[in-house]
């Protein structure tokens, strides 16, 4: 197993090198001049040149690239001009915020989508199948910022059930001691139930928004995969042998249907992590998506490069995890490998 993981990690190196080169080049061809942007409205051309020099942007591209790679090798991703802080620091504080939100959103989504998909497949053509179709279509066709604003309007503005959409914690609370960076987990580790409640009350609405958005792919994939499995020989045999329907569906059919679902979950997760920038904007969530977008708007190279790199690494790890899960779920994968 370990050997397999190492082998997998070995194949990752070339793609990471590619990511480093491509992001570097892409950020340099972006329109916009960071020196002019950061020199401020009152800058004279000399002031802009001065800033260009201090940012090292006047040097040849190859030299800039080498400097970037040398810094990168030392774990230094550079400093963001928009927030003024090291990119490494920002990513390590913002990634958990996004990951916590995305994971919770995914859990919410799975809690609805998996049963719905299974039921839709078992009772194909029934009202529940139609319901799953409607929910999935609605979920995917409502833009995520719209769902977010609507939920804020209903649950915060009208009903007052949710607290003000102002980030991870009400301003009265201070952050829990950092262990995992996940406020829900860290607050429990501290044994501070009030803090946990405060963090949860902030996160449930954005998580629900994300959950609604990701319902569609998971429901549809569960349904399709279950349908294929339910039509297979071993399910027919199980039924013919008189096994109870629950056992047939959950123990035999669902487990066999899990592989494509896990693949979809992995894709949805990595997609959500980068794409939840709109939810982050609506809920003032200090996540990584809004950080990257703001940096992009300001032609702030370092955070964009850092973000793409972090995402690439995350993607690689996620794929690795999924591959390992395959083996856990389906012994055939292990044997064939």
């Amino acid at each position, binding site marked *: 197993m370990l050997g397999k993981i190492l082998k997998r990690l070995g194949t990752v190196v070339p793609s990471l090198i590619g990511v480093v080169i491509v992001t570097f080049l892409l950020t340099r061809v972006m329109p916009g001049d960071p020196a*002019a942007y950061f020199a401020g409205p009152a800058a004279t051309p000399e002031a802009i040149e001065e*800033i260009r020099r201090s940012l090292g942007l006047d040097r040849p591209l190859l030299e800039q690239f080498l400097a970037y790679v040398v810094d990168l090798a030392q774990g230094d991703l550079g400093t963001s001009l928009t927030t003024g802080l090291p990119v490494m620091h920002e990513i390590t504080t913002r990634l958990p915020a996004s990951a916590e939100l995305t994971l919770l959103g995914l859990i919410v989504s799975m809690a609805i989508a998996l049963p719905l998909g299974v039921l839709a497949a078992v009772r194909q053509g029934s009202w529940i199948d139609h319901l799953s179709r409607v929910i999935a279509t609605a979920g995917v066709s409502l833009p995520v910022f719209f769902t977010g604003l609507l939920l804020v309007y209903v649950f915060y503005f009208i009903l007052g059930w949710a607290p003000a959409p102002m980030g991870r914690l009400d301003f009265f609370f201070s952050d829990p001691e950092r262990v995992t960076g996940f406020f829900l987990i860290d607050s429990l580790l501290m044994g501070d139930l009030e803090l946990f409640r405060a963090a949860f*009350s902030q996160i449930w609405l954005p998580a629900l928004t994300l959950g609604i958005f990701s319902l569609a792919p998971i429901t549809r994939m569960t349904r399709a995969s279950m349908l294929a499995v339910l039509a297979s020989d071993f399910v027919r045999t199980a039924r013919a042998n008189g096994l109870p329907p629950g056992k047939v569906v959950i123990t035999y059919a669902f487990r066999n249907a899990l592989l494509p679902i896990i693949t979809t979950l992995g894709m949805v997760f990595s997609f959500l992590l980068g794409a939840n920038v709109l939810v982050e904007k609506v809920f003032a969530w200090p996540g990584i998506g809004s950080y990257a977008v703001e940096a992009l708007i300001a032609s702030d190279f370092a955070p964009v490069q850092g973000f793409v790199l972090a995402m690439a690494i995350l993607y690689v790890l996620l794929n690795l995890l999924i591959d390992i899960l395959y083996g856990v779920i389906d012994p055939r994968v292990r044997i064939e490998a």
Partner: protein
Amino acid sequence: MNRREFLKTTTATALGAAAGVAAPAFINKAQAQSRAETLLIVSESGPNNIDIHGVGTNVPGYEVSWNTNARLLSHGMKTDETGKQLYDRDAIIPELAEDMTVGDMSATFKLRKDATFHDGTPVTARDVKWSLDRAVSVGGFPTFQMKAGSLEKPEQFVVLDDHTVRVDFLRKDRLTIPDLAVIVPCVINSELVKSKATAEDPWGLDYTKVNGAGAGAYKVVKWTAGTEVVYERNEDWKLGPMPKVKRIVWRMVPSAGNRRALLERGDADISYDLPNKDFVELKDAGKLNIVSTPYSNGVQYLGMNVTKPPFDNPLVRQAVACAVPYQKIMDAVLFGLAKPMFGAAPGTPTEAKWPQATTFSTDLEKAKALLTEAGYPDGFETTLSFDLGFAGVNEPLCVLVQESLAKVGIRTTINKIPGANWRTELNKKELPLYTNVFSGWLDYPEYFFFWCYHGNNSVFNTMSYQSPTMDGFIDGARAAAAAGDTAAYEADCKGFVDLAFKDVPRIPLYQPYVNVAMQKNVSGYQYWFHRRLDYRALVKEA
């Protein structure tokens, strides 16, 4: 983990999540107490650097610098007819200085002996000199701003003794003293910052980027970039009345809709960058206090590149000025929240002040006639550019202008330029037609004209306008102001305003408003030239 266990845990997690129902936010008594002493400000974006001397410090960063630092001088307040508090341009009062003697070619400041920095170190004349040296030496915006008041060289700042500083004038300039009361010449704890400086960073900019080293009424106790800034009152503040609010929390809420919801629900105390439409609706609803103040010395305008055809012809520029749908812009884009800079009755005498309204109003017949006279009876094609960073106002404005210009045969393509790129494009001075805002901290007409119309072609003369007559008026007004010759000054001011309206290299549209919305129990808002909040006077009643 084997696969059976894995399946069990997944199902259990899914069920657990399904059962979880959110509890509404819970506020106990102690929290309520602390909330009453805390003022919550919400705005779209936050600082990127808390030191205004830093490289590329953004405008929210200016607000932090203003509130956490002290300066030699400050401004007094005046109250307008509606009871609104405004800074008084002409009342310059001491802050760190207790006494100021202005001589012919220098000014001498006696410092207060009881002033201390946040760490308790007394403020001395050496700190003042070091801070002013820093402002004129670091380059970029701070140095530029100092230059605007003829403060250019470290040799101009002389330490006479521990509590006396002399500022020597390079030349007579009426802006020198006001320029010592803006945000940039703040006094920093020189011993502290020097101890953090390095060979590559002799002014300790890396340290002050995230650490306060000032003597202001508030200090930053927590700053999470892009999320929040938390201030606490400086309990040793002696340079003015003790501020009322103990703790200030400034949260960044990017969605304008949510900022409005926070205000309406009573969760946030102050917000000052909402779309005009929201401000008008909030004003009509009457649940909040809304204060609107015109930008001092600021104008949104339509600029034209006068070096290239067709806009090199003054008749074409006048034609455009007659074709702008001024009133529609006021109603549909700004919802009335701006001061019109058009439509003065013909024959209105020009005044020696700025901004003032032009006599232009929408007159398509006249525009057509002018175009025909200029040799463009069928109009022409051009592009109309704007900064996407301020799309909320710029986009509808440009669409209205495009529609109206089409009626006189000027066919325009709208060119949206992303915020990061806007200044680069503008500084190239190649955009034929564009809209932009200029506003100056120092509220003097000749200051505005020097940057925007003078032939020395500063970055703000975006039209590349050149006129020896104009330069003569502007230089004349500056010299007259320095010499105190009121009659000559007024004549020159009227001269440059008249010429600017006759040649129209740029068409003034309106004076934008600074809009601030706050809860009814919050009072003490003051308008400052920098248009950001001054926390010192704010009061929050229980």
